């Protein structure tokens, strides 16, 4: 009885691990897609002249 219970539990654990992996891969794909979709939106707010902007971002040292 104890044996029987142990077996299925182990395999369901394996399955859970697989599902979690698959899910996280899926989630990551989804995230990637989202980010591709939002790059355009981010392009719209990016400072227009990257080169000038970066060059003129000069700070004094602090702590």
């Amino acid at each position, binding site marked *: 009885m104890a044996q029987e219970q142990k077996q299925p539990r182990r395999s369901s654990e394996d399955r859970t691990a697989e599902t979690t992996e698959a899910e996280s891969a899926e989630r990551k794909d989804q995230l990637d897609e989202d980010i591709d979709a939002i790059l355009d939106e981010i392009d719209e*707010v990016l400072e227009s002249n990257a080169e000038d902007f970066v060059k003129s971002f000069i700070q004094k*040292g*602090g702590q």
Partner: protein
Amino acid sequence: MSVRRVMGTETEFGISVQGQPTANPMVASSQVVNAYALSVLRARRARWDFEEESPLRDARGFDVSREVADPSQLTDEDLGLANVILTNGARLYVDHAHPEYSTPECTNPRDVVRWDKAGELVMQDACRFAAAVPSAAPIVLYKNNTDNKGASYGAHENYLMRRSTPFGDIVRHLTPFFVSRQVVTGAGRVGRGQDGREDDFQVSQRADYFEVEVGLETTLKRPIINTRDEPHADPERYRRLHVIIGDANLSEISGYLKVGTTSLVLSMIEDGFITRELGVEQPVRSLRAVSHDPTLKHQLTLHDGRRLTAVQLQLEYLDLARKYVEDKYGADADEQTRDVLARWESVLTRLETDPLLCARELDWVAKLTLLNRYRDRDGLEWSDAKLHLVDLQYADIRPGRGLYNKLVAMGQVERLLTDEEIAAAVHQPPPDTRAYFRGRCLEKYAERIAAASWDSVIFDLPGRDSLQRVPTIDPLRGSRAHVGELLDRCETAEQLFEALTRP
């Protein structure tokens, strides 16, 4: 203790005057701070009290001394740079050439993040007020730590610790923790070397600016462990550990884990719980090596010869922390302590598998993910100005322009707090430290407060020639539980002062 202790953060913001790259940053910083003070602080603005705290007695929480403090004296000590205290108990001032916001004292990591994020709102408002001045050029602030041209500016953490803990123990056990914690707390940077001469991505903003292991300096030869000893509490019993190695975080989870895990490690050090040898060889070089490898494969060499990645070293600390909390509290561990442990473990586990899995939680991964997308889509090299721009603009604090804020708006970021909680913290102090007394006094009796600081509130009361200084030497006294009812009841500062000094 647990993750809970008296703590606070300080952030020096990067500053630029739009269209005027040569504008004087000290002037611009003062404009920002002054604009906020003028627009928000009612009546007179309380000055920062630079006077050293002296009385250590703590009768009823406040040892009211009546020593004469001439107002002009304060003006002399105030270095002429803008410096004000806010109703949330925070300090807003100009530090070197940057506007700085220092949170009020908090008792837990979640509150630290809440009042730290409130600082971004304060600075957003400050910029808006400064821009309202006719003919003023817009000023934009950045919550980052470097211009990638050689200059770095800090984001500090402060932790109240027992004085009895030998400083050597702190150095010994905290150094490896600081070398490795950047995999969780880093904000990401495009560029390597202090002046960014090499084009590549790295995990941390600050790593390249640290040159020694231990020291007092903060602006040059920066040390991994800073020895500044200004406890703002009873010096016999406490020290305030001033941590300068962290990156400024936009991500709430990064900030929460930064403060939460550090506080937990400090507890273990105070309780002598860390007996494992975790010291790393050449900490300063190792710090950089970890930062320079965003794949997180770099292996650190420990004094005992073991080789561990930064994530593995963090896992060692996590393992110790789990045992420590279990030993000490068992099932009674408080909720935040358990939450910090769970999130820390979750993040470290994913960092080991694939760092990019943490894009919703950690600043450096969120930034890198965005940069990688641009590299893929537009075929950009790390030298490309656009990638450098993305790095800088990630930290632009404006809601509509900052890329971190954009990611939040697009639901790409995991949050810890609600917008409402953060907005409320702009005006309200934390309820459970002396910041409550300070903030409420500023809110209620502004016209009667001449100055204030972490350790005091100074009243200027009608009919009295001298200023009346109320020391607040104990960070945990002056809480809502302690003085809330009194503050509610006293309509005037005079009434409050009477009540506090009545024998």
